[in-house]
């Protein structure tokens, strides 16, 4: 079986390398991409959309349809992860560990044992990851707001500098994952629950498709943001710039929510009780 896999890999890899010989050389000025497509974007992006970053305008405006389905792919990944991993039946764990906060003593409660969940003096801890990291938690508490503000900056500043919805969304999701790692999964879920993340997954796609639909209702093509000029009271060129920002916000929300969903389900094996 292993040798068949090796032969198949070598054959397909060789085929790919052989086919890539037909590509124009890297950086060839006469290749079709460089002679027709790229010059148009380089010359017309600023006057069409008033966005200095050409990559952002190609991603969200000229090729907005592609990006919408990329967003839907990410949304589908999140939904598939929920369907595959999430266990909706609550299974009581074999043992639960509680830490008595004033003294640091750990209590072990066997299955079926009763324990007050809302006591101020006892805190439930994971059975796999018990250290009480004061330095780590304090550092994360201080650094997470800055990470989140940076993520929002990356989304909002995608017009002028590298960045955009995907990157900003991932950074925002990473800040929540960092919180879940530094504290524990239950306190992260308490702050950003499962229903909220699932709702945000759908909301982002809805924002993206909704912007396109509003454009259609105003008589333009799907995702032709210049139709938004009437609603926002600006000229059509600025409207395209603002439309890009709107869909980037939608993309950011989807990506953030899906990253959090993936982490919650992977780290807790679908139980969303004890995690990494």
């Amino acid at each position, binding site marked *: 079986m*292993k040798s068949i896999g090796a032969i198949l890999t070598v054959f397909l890899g060789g085929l790919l390398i052989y086919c890539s010989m037909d590509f124009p050389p890297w950086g060839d000025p006469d290749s079709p991409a460089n002679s027709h497509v790229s010059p148009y974007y380089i010359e017309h992006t600023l006057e069409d959309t008033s966005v200095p*970053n050409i*990559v*952002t305008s190609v*991603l969200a405006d000229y090729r907005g349809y592609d990006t919408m389905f990329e967003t839907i792919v990410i949304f589908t990944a999140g939904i598939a992860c929920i369907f595959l991993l999430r266990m909706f039946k609550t299974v009581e764990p074999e043992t639960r560990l509680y830490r008595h906060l004033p003294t640091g003593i750990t209590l072990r409660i066997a299955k079926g044992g009763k324990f007050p969940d809302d006591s101020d003096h006892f805190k439930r801890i994971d059975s*796999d990851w018990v250290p009480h990291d004061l330095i780590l938690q304090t550092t994360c508490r201080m650094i997470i707001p800055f990470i989140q503000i940076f993520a929002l900056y990356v989304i909002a500043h995608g017009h002028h500098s*590298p*960045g*955009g919805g*995907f*990157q900003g969304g*991932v*950074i925002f*999701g*990473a800040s929540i*994952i960092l919180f879940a*790692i530094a504290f524990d999964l239950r306190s992260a879920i308490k702050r950003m629950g499962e229903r909220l993340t699932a709702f945000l997954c759908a909301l982002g796609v809805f924002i993206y498709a909704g912007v396109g639909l509003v454009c259609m209702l105003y008589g333009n093509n799907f995702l032709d943001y210049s139709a938004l000029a009437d609603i926002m009271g600006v000229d059509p060129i600025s409207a395209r710039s603002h439309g890009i920002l709107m869909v980037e916000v939608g993309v950011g929300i989807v990506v953030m929510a899906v*990253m959090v969903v*993936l*982490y919650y389900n*992977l*780290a*807790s*094996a679908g139980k969303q009780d004890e*995690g*990494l």
Partner: protein
Amino acid sequence: MIWQIELIILMIVIVLAIGALAVKDLLSAAVLFGAYSFMMCLLWAIMGAVDVAFTEASVGAGVSTVLFVAAVFRTSRRTKD
């Protein structure tokens, strides 16, 4: 472009890719894969594709490594083959 730097990074990329496939410990494979993504990010930045480099750094080197580590944490650290 300084071609020496590019060559060194390309060689590191290949070594990391082979290492990530060959290593038996899946946690090490996840870490090697993160390092691989980071080297790819440097390559994108050298080629001038800053947006792609940013995405690679945040998605490839950042979140996907965390997801791999979470998956290894819930399954086994050793590969069967």
